């Protein structure tokens, strides 16, 4: 029971963006994709979501290839939350979240009871029930993020892949979002999330996959992955460390000290 990507290589515009990268995500697990800008995090996420066909390598779902799985059942298995998140300003929040039910509906069929329940549940999870009737264009940035996340949750897929879901959120909503991701993983969803904040990544992810310039540098528990050498080599920083109530924090403090 897993999504398995093996030896994924991707070239974009003649430049290698991913080279021989392996990744795996299991149900009930939160995997954080971390790495500096341009490391290939978004590309790997898009390959896992089958939005991009890799030049080499393959992605399997429980041993079945994407072709065997088919477009429809893939859409019910993997929910994708795009970075930034485009949404028509005049559409109502409820209608927008309802679009997450399209993979479950026969073309042109009306929304059924299960669809309505899923939309209501997603809105509740994201604390968005209060503005379900409003137009997307009238929401604040934080509300908009929650609604787009609710759209992805409405798919009720066993896997959720989220590309920088914290970008542009205030600290409170960052924590809320990650707690929500933890909660759905506790209910069995496999979550892959691209993150930049190392403390949040260490606190909320079961496992981290560190990418740098298209290569997999490390894959393991946050403590293993985020050691001082890697922070220096990959991110070019040194960080202050500590722990609070048994949870580690990593505070990027300065550029890597010049050596040699």
């Amino acid at each position, binding site marked *: 029971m897993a999504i398995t990507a093996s030896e994924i290589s991707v070239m974009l515009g003649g430049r290698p963006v991913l080279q021989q990268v392996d990744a795996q995500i299991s149900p009930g697990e939160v995997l954080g994709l971390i790495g500096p800008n341009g490391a290939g995090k978004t590309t790997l996420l*898009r390959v896992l*979501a089958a*939005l991009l066909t890799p030049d080499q390598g393959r992605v399997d779902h429980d041993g079945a290839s994407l072709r065997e799985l088919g*477009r*429809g059942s*893939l*859409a*019910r298995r*993997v*929910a*994708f939350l*795009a970075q930034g*998140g*485009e*949404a*028509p*300003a*005049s*559409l*109502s*929040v*409820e*209608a*927008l979240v309802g*679009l*997450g039910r*399209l*993979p479950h*509906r026969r*073309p*042109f069929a009306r929304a059924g009871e299960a669809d309505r329940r899923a939309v209501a549940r997603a809105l509740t999870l994201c604390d968005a029930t209060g503005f379900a*009737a*409003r*137009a997307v*264009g*009238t929401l604040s940035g934080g509300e908009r993020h929650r609604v787009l996340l609710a*759209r992805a949750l409405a*798919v009720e897929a066993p896997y959720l892949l989220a590309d920088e879901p914290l970008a542009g959120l205030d600290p409170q909503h960052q924590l809320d979002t990650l707690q929500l991701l933890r909660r759905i993983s506790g209910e069995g969803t496999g979550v892959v999330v691209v993150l930049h904040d190392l403390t949040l990544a260490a606190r909320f992810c079961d496992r981290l996959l560190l990418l740098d310039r298209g290569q997999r540098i490390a894959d393991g528990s946050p403590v293993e992955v985020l050691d001082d050498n890697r922070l220096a080599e990959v991110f070019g920083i040194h960080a202050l460390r500590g722990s609070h109530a048994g949870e580690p924090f990593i505070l990027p403090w300065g550029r890597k000290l010049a050596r040699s």
Partner: protein
Amino acid sequence: MTPHASLGIRPASLLSLLALAVLALAAVSLAVGYAPLALGQAVADWLAGQKSLPALVVYELRLPRALLGALVGFSLGMAGAAMQGLLRNPLAEPGVIGISSAAAFGAVLAFYSGLSASLALALPLGGIAGALVATVILFILLGRGASTTTLILAGVALNSFAGAATSLALNLAPNPYATLEIVFWLMGSLADRSMSHVWLVLPPMLAGWLLMASTAPALDALSLGEDTAASLGFDLVWLRARLIGGTALAVGSAVAVTGAIGFVGLVVPHLLRPLVGHRPGRLLVASGFGGAILVLAADIGVRIMPVRPELKLGVVTALIGAPFLFTLVQRLRREVL
């Protein structure tokens, strides 16, 4: 900043209302003409199989005009909604991918070559041929997995080329009379068409409508962006192919038989969008009916207006359409910013 997500009209009731309006306008269109006519008597004669003069006027002149008005309007309205949905741009219209200009050029070529003098349906056939050639070129240019920008650029290229070729035909026209006739044809009109025009364009238009209508759920998903739409299980290459093919069939036939009728495909989707809860999928059929309403109304208008020879339809739809755009600009400025 008021909540205005939905105006609370059920989709089925909206479509029924629009369809009723199309039927009513088609009936008015049958009743309006240059010769005074006892319409009831004419229809009774026609139904009884009597070829009286009033019956012939209704069947040979007015019925094709009303039917073509509805068919052409439906095609333009629906294709406008389809293109705005596909390109996610409110300025898109059926002509944006270059099919209409190519159809117009095909008809002009049939006209110019003198084919239209020997063959009654040469103009529409030439138009349809032009649309087909343009569609093939478009698909070759796009290949698989082309982006929206590529599609727009290919459309601009096709539009420029077909426009230039049409101007060349005008430039080289043998006499001023021929030039005038081509220019008038390009302005668009439903006058003097026959039932054979209707039968010619009905099959490709129906096929085009079905292709476009089949994309409704995918267009809804596409409003969230290409990656999200693909993650919801929609094949974007196939979606694009259906929309281009559908637009080519419906709009290519429309232009081939009536000339260029502008603004319908641009304005109608804008007017109806709030009534369908801003769902691009639901907008398709509603815009079709809206387009039929606008074209029928404009065609009734040109016959009622005391201007002879009657104004060209494309001129009137643009005159009606442009002010709507002005109000739209006003509304958008208040809403979105």
